[in-house]
């Protein structure tokens, strides 16, 4: 393989809802196969940033690219092809309420894979087992717990073996054990398939374990406060706010 290229870039990006700018002057990039954690206080715009990077919302200014393509200037089949190679876990899981968990995971596979039913079924069962839901495959989203819904959402985001996966608070609502298993899963997927991951998390230990880079969104300045390796956030001097965010959350 050639030198890892930037699978995700954004330059002077401004994000928000309608006319309201939530964050602007965002510039960073992420090489393929790396794991980026987006951190910041509640309501600072992390989910908004994920949606904009994933091409779900129009940016209010600037530019972002996914796999070398500016999604907001791309349409039709080319755009769909890029979106198909990304997976997205929404903060509220957003499972299809009328489908069982298995059917939720099978749905994208049936639409986009040519494989026969039996193999799709095996694949869906495997993906659900990866997130520890082997016993709940035939339940409806209304019959499972919040943490289970999160995990099912992760399995659906992984359904098509995406190159890049966005996870909005994957470990929220999970116990420390499941959360640890999830970190493990993310690392193993990266190792096996070179999957790039962008995730939102509030759990500093988990960020330190998984992430290569970390971007801190600062609501006071309305832009990114710091960008760097999570370990650099632990040292004072880099960015006082990001430092405080990281050290406050540590149990010591």
């Amino acid at each position: 393989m050639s030198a890892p290229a930037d699978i995700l870039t954004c330059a002077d990006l401004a994000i928000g809802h309608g006319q309201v700018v939530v964050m602007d002057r965002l510039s960073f990039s992420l090489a393929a196969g790396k794991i980026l954690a987006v951190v910041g206080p509640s309501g600072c715009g992390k989910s908004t940033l994920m949606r904009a990077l994933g091409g779900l919302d129009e940016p209010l200014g600037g530019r972002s690219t996914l796999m070398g393509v500016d999604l907001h200037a791309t349409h039709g089949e080319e755009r769909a092809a890029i979106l198909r190679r990304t997976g997205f876990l929404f903060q509220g899981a957003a499972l299809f309420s009328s489908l069982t968990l298995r059917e939720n995971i099978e749905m994208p596979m049936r639409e986009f894979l040519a494989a026969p039913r039996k193999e799709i079924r095996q694949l869906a069962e495997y993906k659900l087992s990866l997130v520890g839901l082997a016993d709940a495959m035939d339940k409806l989203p209304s019959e499972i717990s919040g943490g289970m819904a999160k995990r099912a959402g992760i399995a659906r985001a992984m359904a098509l073996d995406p190159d890049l996966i966005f996870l909005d608070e994957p470990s929220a609502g999970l116990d420390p054990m499941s959360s640890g298993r999830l970190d493990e899963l993310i690392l193993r997927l990266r190792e096996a398939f070179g999957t790039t991951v962008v995730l939102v998390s509030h759990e500093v230990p988990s960020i330190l374990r998984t992430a290569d880079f970390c971007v801190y969104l600062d609501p006071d300045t309305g832009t990114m406060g710091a960008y760097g390796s999570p370990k650099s956030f632990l040292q004072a001097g880099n960015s006082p706010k990001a430092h405080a965010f990281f050290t406050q959350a540590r149990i010591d």
Partner: protein
Amino acid sequence: MNILSPKYLTIRMSQAPTGSPFARTEVLADGTALVTIGGSWTLDQPLPAIVTKGDRVRVVTEGLADFDSSLPAWLYANFKNVRQLDLSPLPPRLQSLVQIAEKASSEQAVPEQTGFLEKFGNWGVESSSSWGRAFEHIGDTASGFLRMLVGRAKVNWGDFTLQLQTAGVDALPIVALLGFLTGLIMAYVGLIQLRQVGATVYVANLVSLAMTREMGALMTGVIACGRTSTAFASQLGSMNVSQETDALRALGLHPVEYLALPRILAVTLMVPLLAVFATFVGIFGGMVVACAGDLSIEQYLTQAIRAISFKSFLVGFIKSIAFGFIAGWAGCYRGSVAKRSALGVGEAATSAAVLGITFIVIADAVFAVIFNLFDL
């Protein structure tokens, strides 16, 4: 930049495909099944099927090219119940993807085929329990109404005024149109018959009596089922889905009192008014046809007024109150028992309309018998 530039291709496409996936089994002297896998494993091509016996399996590779998650999924599906599974000859990244998948604690139960009689029995049990719930809902509504009268129920009066508007005032155009056409059609059909006996003047009696006693209330009730019951069912049903009903309950509010009561009251109030309106518009519709050739306006009106007694007016009015209640109740009831899914909300709306219209027609028949007994 070209999206197909190689650096963005996944592992599964980054190497030239080296033939389709294969798997072979042989049994070793010690009884271990030796499974050899190789080739390029992607979901774009059929995966091999294998049969292994025994609970000792060792998997080795032979010219394994690239793979996507179909390979770990295949290994997981085929060997998850094998007691001694030796994956050590596999590449570590593949091993780890099989091991991290958690095993189901029990085999997934395959849904049993139910026979005809069982289905019939289930249907009986289900429908009797749903009848129970239906009556419970009516009871809740009634007791909520009584509690409201003594000022002990918390009712969302904002919803009440909103529904007076949407279920009442906003329905005027469609009620006017359908009422007008009903009167018109009745006059038209009536005239054809009455001309043969030279009694065309009685078309006024026919239309005005039918509109006051029967059609005004019935048409309005059916319109309320189509417009309002379905709206109620989907409103309450989607509140069920997003757990808003639970949030109300957690606040100590009774969903039937807080949500259903104002809606049912609003419709029960508005349908009679709409029915009176429909009656007059219908009589006017009949006049348009009758006075186009057969009668003068004066003749028609005199006959019409003579035909309608206070009794028949009362009959129509009582009916329309009942129909309004049925339409409102059907919507709220079906909404409150809707399944928690997008599909469930749709089903609730459909069944609300069906339930409402069915009950309205049944009630109409019951009223016919009762009024006949009391000579109204």
